[in-house]
C-alpha cells in the first residue's frame, strides 16, 4: 500500500519535473517601466561592491551603478529595489524572474554566457590569496596539497580548481564564512577576487595578501536574461553614457580610489 502510494508520488513528481515551467520572454524594459521600479540583485557580503551598513542599507559600487541605471530609467536614483544575492544563487534569481538585472561583482565567463547575457564590461578584476601574516605561502603554486577556502560559484573557486587541482578545497556559501574559516586557521588560504581581499585585509590586520600580480584577470559584467536584446541595449547605453560623462569615474574613485595603484585597469 505504502509502496503504491510512493510510486504514485514519484510518478507525479517526475511528470512535473518533465513538463517544467518556462519563463516568459516578454521584454524586461516594459516590465520595469510598468512597475516603476528596477529590481536589482546585489551582494551583501562583498565590499566594496555590495554590502550593508549597520542600519541594513545597501551600499557599494554595484549599488551605485544600479542607482545610475534607475536614474536613466525614471530620472530618479531611488526607483530601485535591492534583492540580496550570492555568487551561488544570483543567476537562478535572474532566470526565474526574481530580479531584472544582476549587479553582483560577476566575472564574465563562457560557462555563464550560455545561460545569461552580459552587458559591456564595467570592472577589471584578478585573483589573489589571503593568508595569515606568518604564512609561508607566496604564490598560488605554493597552495598544492594545502587546505584552502573558496566560495561556492565564485571564479576564485573555479580558477584555483584549474590551477592547483590538488589543493584541498573547502567551499562555503558566503565570503564571510570562508574568511571566518581562515581566521580560525581551519584553512591556510582564502582565494577570491583582488578587490574583495583588499577590503577584507584592511579590516583584518592579522592577515596579508599574497600572489601578486592578480592572476587570471577577467572583466566583470552586469547580467540580464538571455535573448532580451532591448533590455541589454538599454543597459549598455546607460553604462556607455556614464562612462562618457565622467559619472563612472567618480564612482570608481569613490569606492576604489585608495587602491588605484594595485587594481587592474579596465580597457
Amino acid at each position, binding site marked *: 500500500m*505504502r509502496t503504491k502510494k*510512493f510510486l504514485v*508520488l*514519484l510518478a507525479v*513528481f*517526475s511528470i512535473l*519535473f*518533465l*513538463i*517544467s*515551467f*518556462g*519563463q*516568459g*520572454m516578454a521584454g524586461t524594459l516594459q516590465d520595469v517601466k510598468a512597475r516603476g521600479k528596477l529590481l536589482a540583485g546585489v551582494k551583501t557580503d562583498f565590499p566594496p561592491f555590495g554590502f550593508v551598513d549597520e542600519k541594513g542599507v545597501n551600499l557599494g559600487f554595484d549599488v551605485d551603478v544600479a542607482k545610475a541605471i534607475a536614474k536613466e530609467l525614471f530620472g530618479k536614483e531611488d526607483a530601485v529595489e535591492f534583492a540580496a544575492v550570492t*555568487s*551561488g*544563487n544570483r*543567476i*537562478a534569481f535572474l*532566470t*526565474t524572474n526574481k530580479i531584472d538585472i544582476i549587479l553582483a561583482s560577476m566575472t564574465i565567463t563562457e*560557462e*555563464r554566457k*550560455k*545561460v*545569461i547575457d552580459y552587458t559591456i564590461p564595467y570592472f577589471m578584476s584578478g585573483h589573489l590569496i589571503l593568508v595569515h601574516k606568518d604564512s609561508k605561502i607566496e604564490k598560488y603554486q605554493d597552495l598544492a596539497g594545502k587546505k584552502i577556502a573558496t566560495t*561556492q*560559484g565564485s571564479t576564485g573557486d*573555479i580558477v584555483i580548481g584549474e590551477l592547483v587541482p590538488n589543493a584541498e578545497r*573547502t*567551499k*562555503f*556559501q558566503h565570503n564571510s*564564512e570562508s574568511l*571566518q*574559516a581562515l581566521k*580560525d*586557521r*581551519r584553512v591556510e588560504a582564502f582565494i577570491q577576487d583582488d578587490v574583495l581581499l583588499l577590503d577584507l585585509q584592511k579590516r583584518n590586520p592579522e592577515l596579508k595578501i599574497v600572489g601578486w600580480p592578480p592572476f587570471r584577470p577577467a572583466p566583470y559584467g552586469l547580467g540580464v536574461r*538571455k*535573448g532580451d536584446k532591448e533590455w541589454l541595449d538599454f543597459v549598455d547605453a546607460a553604462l556607455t553614457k556614464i562612462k562618457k560623462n565622467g559619472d563612472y569615474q567618480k564612482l570608481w574613485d569613490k569606492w576604489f580610489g585608495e587602491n588605484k595603484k594595485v587594481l587592474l585597469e579596465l580597457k
Partner: protein
Amino acid sequence: MGLGKSPNPILFPMGYQLDPSIVIKHLPLFLKGVFLTVEISFFAIVIGLSIGILAAVARTSKFKILNLISAVYVEVFRNTPLLIQIFIIFFGLPGIGIKLSPYISGLTALVLYVGAYNTEVIRSGLEAVPRGQMEAAKSLGLTGVQAFLYIILPQTVRISLPALGNNWVSLVKNSSLVSVIGMVELTWVALDLNALTFRSFELFGAATIFYLILIFILINIQNFVERRFAYKT
C-alpha cells in the same frame, strides 16, 4: 553542459530547455553526497538514540540535579534553530579554543538536536509503562537495573518507536543544513552544481528525488522493526 549543447534537449513553448543529462553527468558526485547524507544520518540516529535513552532516564530520575541537567539540555536544543546550533559549534566554539572539524561539528549538532527530541519521546514512553511492572519485577527478585533493562526498556522502545521514526525522518531532512559548513552531502552537491551550471530545476529536482528515496527506505526499515517488536497475538 549548457543550453543548446546537450544531445537531446527537451523543448518547451515558453523557452526553457530542460537538460536532465546534467544530473547523469554529475551522478558520481551526487552519489557521493547521498552516501555522506546516509552516513551522518545513520551515526546521528544511533548515537542520538543512546543520548535520548540516557537523558530520558535522567529526566525521570529521583536525583534533582540529573533531572535539571536533562531538562535544560532538552529545552535548549529543542527551542533553538538547528542552523544556529551548527554555526555555534563550527564558527563559535573556536572563539573559546575548541576547534572541531566540519564533519565532527555537523555530526555533533545533529546528534544533540535529534537526541533532545528523542529524550521527550522516550520519557513519555517510560511513563507509559505501568508502575506495577517495576514492582512486579522486583518482587520476582530482579534488581532495579535488571528490571529496567529487561522489563521496562524493551516496552518503552516498543511504545516509542513510531514517534522515534518521525524524529528520524526529520533528522534526514535536517541533515541538509550541514551543507553550510562545507560538508559535501546531498544538498551541498546540488547547491554547488547549481552555482556552476545554473540548472536549478534539474539539480534540485534530482536532490528531491534522492531524498524521497532515502526517506522511503528509512520508513520501510522502521515499519519492519516496528513489526518485529510488536506484541505477538
